């Protein structure tokens, strides 16, 4: 019985309209968050899913491309040129261009966003690998490291700080760009924003917008944390480096 009473309590009192009713239409409304919890959670999880899939696909494509570009210097400028060209195409224009091939599906959004993430990530991988000092590479070779082991054990770990910086940029912008996916109805929280605009529903609009920013900052913080755990040596190194700079 208690449950029904509680459930009825939210929309029932006609004398005092809830803060998200048509009459009041407030920007901040906890009642809205409570009553539409499922809808908000669904949108948030779709948003996270699209973001994570897109960034993962971006990384999966960026690594081989970066390695290829490094091996074949003539290819490097065209890879970088292509990625710059792609980045100038607005996301709202990219999704329609993919639709003939992938239809109005989540795949369209994931591929589109992965392409954007790719442009940042290829650059980050190339710069990261370039930041590895040549003498370190030579000493590893002198110690008998083969190409594969050199890459995995020496170059990748040393490139990690630059790569992670790129990953942060790619992730944060992917979270924001996911909202545009609402054009093909797979925009995660973007769907709520679009609905909020068309129906002039302020609480829905602002809740979704704030959640987007929160997701971006949380994912950013998680990547920073992962980087700290993965590269414990950089903290020790940083103090000596700044010490030297000050001297």
């Amino acid at each position, binding site marked *: 019985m208690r449950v029904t009473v509680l459930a009825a309590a939210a929309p029932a009192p006609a004398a005092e309209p809830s803060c998200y009713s048509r009459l009041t239409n407030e920007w901040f409304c906890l009642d809205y968050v409570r009553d539409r919890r499922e809808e908000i959670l669904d949108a948030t999880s779709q948003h996270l899913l699209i973001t994570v899939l897109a960034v993962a696909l971006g990384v999966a494509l960026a690594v081989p491309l970066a390695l290829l570009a490094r091996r074949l210097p003539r290819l490097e400028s065209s890879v970088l040129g292509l990625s710059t060209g792609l980045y*100038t*195409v607005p996301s709202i*224009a990219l*999704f*329609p*261009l993919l639709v003939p091939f992938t239809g109005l599906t989540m795949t369209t959004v994931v591929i589109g966003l992965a392409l954007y993430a790719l442009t940042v990530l290829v650059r980050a991988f190339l710069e990261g690998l370039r930041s590895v000092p040549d003498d370190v590479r030579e000493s590893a070779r002198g110690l008998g490291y083969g190409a594969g082991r050199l890459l995995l054990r020496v170059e990748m770990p040393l490139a990690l700080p630059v790569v992670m910086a790129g990953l942060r940029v790619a992730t944060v912008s992917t979270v924001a760009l996911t909202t545009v996916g609402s054009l093909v109805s797979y925009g995660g929280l973007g769907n709520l*924003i679009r609905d909020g605009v068309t129906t002039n529903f302020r609480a829905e609009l602002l809740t979704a*917008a704030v959640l987007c920013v929160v997701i971006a900052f949380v994912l950013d913080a998680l990547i920073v944390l992962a980087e700290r755990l993965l590269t414990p040596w950089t903290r020790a190194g940083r103090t000596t480096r700044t010490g030297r700079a000050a001297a």
Partner: protein
Amino acid sequence: MRVLQDAWDFLLAAGSWTGEGGMLELLVQQLLLTFTALLLALVVGLPVALGLGHLGRGGFLAVNISNVGRAVPTFALLAVLVTLGWPGTDSFGPYGRAGVATLLALTLFALPPIITNGYVAVREVPADVREAADGMGMTGAQRFWRVELPLALPLVASGVRLALVQVWATATIAALVAGPGLGRVITDGFYRSQYGQGIAGAVVVAVVALLLELLAAGAQRLATRERRDPLATVSTGLHPVG
């Protein structure tokens, strides 16, 4: 692949370019929005960025404003501005429906790259060059105009170029809130299930984006070629900047 044929037909039909709400009108609208917003952002952002860089203050703010700008979805900001009492969907002369809201959002999004690059550009002037200027007895203002600004200019220019392309892209998103610009061709196509039209609009937007990028790159190259060796122009004082 029927839609590709539809898109091609739409691009070739004269009726889709001319008249009220035709692509030409929307194109002009979006170019107008882009350049006005960029100009506003330059007027507001550049003095702040260069001043902070010159004084060496507010670095945390200048660098982190880019991260914040990246995290806030353009679509969300536009949506909030349009739903507010002001600017709302007020029409603004040749800028079209929700012109004020769009201009405001675009200006806000042009600011981060301009401020961050402007600040970093001035800060990255080598310390010994700065010290040499002080040693020669230059005042703070002289040091800024004759030393820091000429050396910072290439990086400032690349920030402006980045902002230009970003603003163009952002202007397209205005259509998601029924705002002005070419994005409307895309959204209309989608909402009416005429995907050919949506694709045609996307092609036009993408082509103009690439053209703007190429134009900006060319302009930047021209601007930096004039003073290829900034240190030389500083020392001979042949090109007083100001």
